[in-house]
């Protein structure tokens, strides 16, 4: 029997690693990869709370599925933007894409 705390600690650690990646990486694709890590940690949390709560109440799994759909949408739009930016500026380094910087 695994206590709930193990899952929560795992997902907290995974979320923190993803957060570090989002803030520290320069490459725009790497930032999207880190966002995927954070979304996965959220999914672990949702499914763990489903399992340790009321089994008949499926909210946790349903929300995990919706997170899947939103993650797919986010990756599609994000990578399309990265490819479009790469075509125009010939770089994917987030610091150098500063057209809208005041």
């Amino acid at each position: 029997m695994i206590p709930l705390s193990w899952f929560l600690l795992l997902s907290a650690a995974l979320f923190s690693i993803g957060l570090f990646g989002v803030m520290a990486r320069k490459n725009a694709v790497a930032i999207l990869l880190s966002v995927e890590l954070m979304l996965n940690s959220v999914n672990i949390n949702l499914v763990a709370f489903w399992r340790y709560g009321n089994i008949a109440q499926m909210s946790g799994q349903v929300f995990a599925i919706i997170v899947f759909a939103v993650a797919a949408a986010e990756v599609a739009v994000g990578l399309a933007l990265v490819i479009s930016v790469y075509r125009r500026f010939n770089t994917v380094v987030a610091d150098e894409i500063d057209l809208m910087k005041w």
Partner: protein
Amino acid sequence: MTALQIIFLISAGVILVSAVMVVTTRNMVHAALWLVATLFGVAVIFAVLEAGFLAVVQVVIYIGAIAIMFIFAVMLTSREMRDKGPQMNQRAWLAGIVGVLIFGSLVLLLSTWDGFNVLPSAIGDTDTLKLLGNALLQPSAYLLPFEVASVLLLAALVGAVYVASNRN
């Protein structure tokens, strides 16, 4: 220590090590492949949590579609990917401090909560997959959010095709 706990610890180790590799490795193709390892670990965690359908969906959608799309994007934008200057910001140490702080405060906050060490109730012979299907397709449950999510996905894909298309 039971077999389930050992499986959990092994997959948690795989998840955390490969997640650290995702955010630190220089070669972006390697980062995408480490992400695949992380996603496999999460699928194992779903199986440990007795959410078998989500474990399969994790492998099919995350690894089969999203990770492969990342690899495509990395290869389409590969000119600047490898070993040219630092891969981290100058203020990456600040990001590290923020990450550690967030983790520490999450652990502190959770450890004060009563339900932190709760043990799971037995699933028995409940058909959770049937419950999930019913929940997704019943108007009184989650039919509307499910359909909104699918419309969102369609709109995002149309938008992605528009943004990425070469109009010249």
